[in-house]
């Protein structure tokens, strides 16, 4: 009963390096989201997807790219990491339709030096 799984859970990068965070869900959910959480700012939406092969920008998309090649996976990429991207990243998923809650992964803590 895994739910939403994020990998890796911790990562330290140097400025300019690239990396990919993987989110996998086993609930057959249509919608998936990437949020970042910074102190005093709650969670802010980076990108989201409403189905396989679709992606859309959220509130803070700059510096990130995403892909949803398979329904169960949602990848978040940083092409050239910056210290401002030091944060905790949460993936979430939801069944399609208007109702229902989001299910969150346990978070990935990224530090960019």
């Amino acid at each position, binding site marked *: 009963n895994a739910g*939403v799984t994020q990998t890796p859970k911790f990562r330290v990068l140097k400025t300019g390096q690239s990396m990919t965070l993987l989110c996998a869900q086993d609930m057959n959910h249509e*919608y998936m*989201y990437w*949020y970042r959480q910074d102190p*005093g*700012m*709650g*969670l*802010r*939406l980076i990108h*989201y997807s*409403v189905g396989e092969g679709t992606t*859309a920008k*959220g509130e803070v998309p700059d510096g990130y790219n995403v892909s949803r090649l398979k329904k169960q996976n949602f990848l978040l990429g940083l092409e050239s990491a910056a210290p401002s991207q030091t944060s905790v990243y*949460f993936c979430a998923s*939801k069944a399609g339709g*208007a109702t*229902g*809650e*989001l*299910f*969150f*992964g*346990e*978070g990935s803590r990224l530090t960019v030096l």
Partner: protein
Amino acid sequence: EDKVVQSPLSLVVHEGDTVTLNCSYEVTNFRSLLWYKQEKKAPTFLFMLTSSGIEKKSGRLSSILDKKELFSILNITATQTGDSAVYLCATKAGTSYGKLTFGQGTILTVHP
């Protein structure tokens, strides 16, 4: 731009106290308001409120929504140290594909 504001930002109480957390919002095409509890890791779902004036309860936690005044409160009675967490309020708009707009969160610390 949708906006969700929580208060207070932090709160320290002793076991047995009752606390009230506040959440006000400005959302275009509002559909629902959700409360989450976040301990060390993932936020976990507490309540979803869509109708004004109807209280949702789960044990010592309860919440109510006022759609006229655009706010919600989360009450916790007889607090325990296990209630220590960040409490997040979020809103969902009608055309948002389930996207949530979050407030800053309230950090609740319950001392023995």
